[in-house]
């Protein structure tokens, strides 16, 4: 068996291992929990997250599915209604479109349509994002689409610590929770504090404090935003970096109180700009903190193009630290 979660000493683990430990802990602590998805068992997960879990928990609870996204996501919803605590892994957000009907029309609506009778305690995990030269059909960032939907919670753990910590509260939520794991983060490593306790999945996290500009981001863009903040410090600009962590509901309070301190806001989102989560956040800032703004809200998003294969093209299409630096400098003037 691979890395165990025992011991309280901090030690360096990857995002992938952190997620695996969280899964293992959940499977051990609640027999209603099971993991279902394409290649989660024998293959060990497309991204290796569930490696070794089949051996420990068996094929009933580490359940390989056929390539039937709508079928097995719907089955996860039904199983949740039937008293289980399913964790459904959709290999990537790109394939989640085949299950969109189930997520939107069933998972998100059943509680409401039934007048409060049917809650759906389901967790859906999926990989998201670009940056690995896998071209247009495998590089989507559609978190914002899901964050559009009332009735579901959308989380985007961006740090190793969050990867370790968000699953438990997600499973404890009586309603559907979508967890987006950016593919570029799996190999990130850190020493999460084992005594940190459960994470408040309602709240955004301030990953770096600053006084001149608020950079709001999430998921795979967080490391870029932090790198940008380092560079900005060299230019004498102190950027505060907010990791949204929860894309729905949005933690308006943390964003607005930061903007009230810095008076400049830059939103960084790997999705396309048009109709993006960045647009939503920008709109909220103008709604709620208009009179705190000393400059227009800036957005750094992906170019409006299907994500191309070639490295240099892909890099150019995606938000980069330099773009964030430029946007912050533009905002602070």
């Amino acid at each position, binding site marked *: 068996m691979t890395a165990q979660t025992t011991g309280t000493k901090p030690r360096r683990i990857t995002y992938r291992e952190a997620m695996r430990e969280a899964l293992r802990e959940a499977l051990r602590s609640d027999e209603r929990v099971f993991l279902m998805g394409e290649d989660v068992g024998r293959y060990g997960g497309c991204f290796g997250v569930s490696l070794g879990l089949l051996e420990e928990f068996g094929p009933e609870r580490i359940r390989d599915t056929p390539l039937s996204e709508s079928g097995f996501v719907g089955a996860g919803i039904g199983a949740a209604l039937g008293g289980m605590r399913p964790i459904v892994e959709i290999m990537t957000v790109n394939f989640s479109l085949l299950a969109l009907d189930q997520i939107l029309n069933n998972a998100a609506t059943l509680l409401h349509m039934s007048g409060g009778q049917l809650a759906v305690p389901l967790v859906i995990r999926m990989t998201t994002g670009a940056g690995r030269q896998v071209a247009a059909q495998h590089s989507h960032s559609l978190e914002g689409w899901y964050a559009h939907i009332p009735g579901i919670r959308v989380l985007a753990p961006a740090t190793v610590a969050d990867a370790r910590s968000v699953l438990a509260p997600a499973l404890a939520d009586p309603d559907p929770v979508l967890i987006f794991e950016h593919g570029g983060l799996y190999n990130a490593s850190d020493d999460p504090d084992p005594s940190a306790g459960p994470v408040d999945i309602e709240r955004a996290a301030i990953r770096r404090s600053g006084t001149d500009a608020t950079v709001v981001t999430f998921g795979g863009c967080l490391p870029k935003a932090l790198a940008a903040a380092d560079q900005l410090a060299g230019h004498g600009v102190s950027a505060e970096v907010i990791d949204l962590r929860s894309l729905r509901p949005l933690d308006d309070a943390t964003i607005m109180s930061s903007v009230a301190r810095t*008076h400049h806001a830059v939103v960084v989102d790997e999705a396309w700009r048009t109709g993006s989560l960045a647009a939503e956040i920008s709109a909220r800032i103008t709604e709620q903190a*208009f009179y*705190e*703004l*000393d*400059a227009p809200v800036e957005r750094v998003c992906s170019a409006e193009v299907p994500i191309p294969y070639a490295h240099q093209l892909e890099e150019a299409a995606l938000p980069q630290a330099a773009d964030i630096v430029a946007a912050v400098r533009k905002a602070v*003037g």
Partner: protein
Amino acid sequence: MPSLGADMDEGTLIEWLVHPGDHVERGDIVAVVETAKSTIEIECFDTGTVGRLLVEPATTVPVGTPLAVIEDGAKAPAAASHQAAARRGAASAQMSAPAASPAPAPSVPVPAGRKPAEVSPILRHLAHELHVDLAAVLGTGPGGRITHADIEHASRTRRTRPRASPLARRVAGELHIDLGRVHGTGKNGVIRAEDVRAAAAPSAPAPSAVPAEDAPPRQPPAPRAAQPDRAAAMRRSIADLMSRSKREIPHYYLAAEIDLDSALNWMRERNRRLEVADRLVPAALMLKAAARALTEVPELNGYWLNDRYVPGAGVHLGVAISLRTGGLIAPALHDADRLPLSELMSALRDLTSRARAGRLRATETADPTMTVTNLGDQGVERVYGVIYPPQVALLGLGKVTERPVAVDGLLGVHPGVTATLAADHRASDGAVGARFLTALDRLLQKPEEL
């Protein structure tokens, strides 16, 4: 046509910034006037409703000519609504029986509150493109409809709404600062909160004269083609004024060497801790000292009018600023004696940049109580100045140079400046002038108290 300086006999109305029916408050900028020296925004000194505009743009009229009628605030709404009713009546009459009544004059204002729905989408788009507020546009088309030309006209003549950030607006509201008087340092001149605070808070930095990064150099509003004429006119105007001065004013001259050692040491220490924008220049120190000296010697702070001396209402130092296009202008640094140094510094930078941009305000050109001319930067040792009538004195400052001084019986090298006073002997005698220079010297020895 207000008098915008003693040398002004006539002015050209460049544009109206208000329209008949507009409510104006005392202090609002209502028009732009071009004088021989500068393009100046003129303020209105009454509160009420703009009635008729008596002078068309591009018309030159003598000082004292009424430009517009401001109606009493109480009567104005009635008049406006009467006009509105008349307008509606005229419009409907015109529609039902075109020949029955004469068409209304095209310049009759459209009643406020007209529905923008009457504007076609194309014109609406144009208005949007040109940042024209349709509610403020006078319609001159049939039935008072807004035409293409109206919007273009409005775009050309509208009073520019200050481009300010939301925070800047909020801060301006809190600090009771008129955004129209704040110089924006943001992109394209956008006013940001720090600009407002700078305009308000004595301790704030003074970024106002700093050109915004990437912003094009500010252009004077007048067409460039007018520049040579303007320069020539200014030359003539200076010629007239200085001739009058030398003809009428019996000047006397005094000079004093002032040791700036402690002043400049203090300044250097202070600047060391500060960002560039907050640093002082020696001129600011000397201006402040001059202003304070004038409060001690008020006989030099005022005007010679109708054969007698009239003291100024405050210490408004005229600051002689040479323009890059040639010529000279000396707008007022209002209440310079009461401005804390940092604020005086920012005001100085603001005044200089606006003078060079041709955007001075009427009161700034009209009422300096004494002028200071500093030619030190040009390498001059001593200035023998010519007084600006009707002022009664002019302080000249030369170059700050290292010079030998006796200190406690020893010879030392200190920075120093030669201050000269040109004063009107009708208004004061040499002893008064001497008191002024002595005070100036004394004040500059204790810079921390300035």
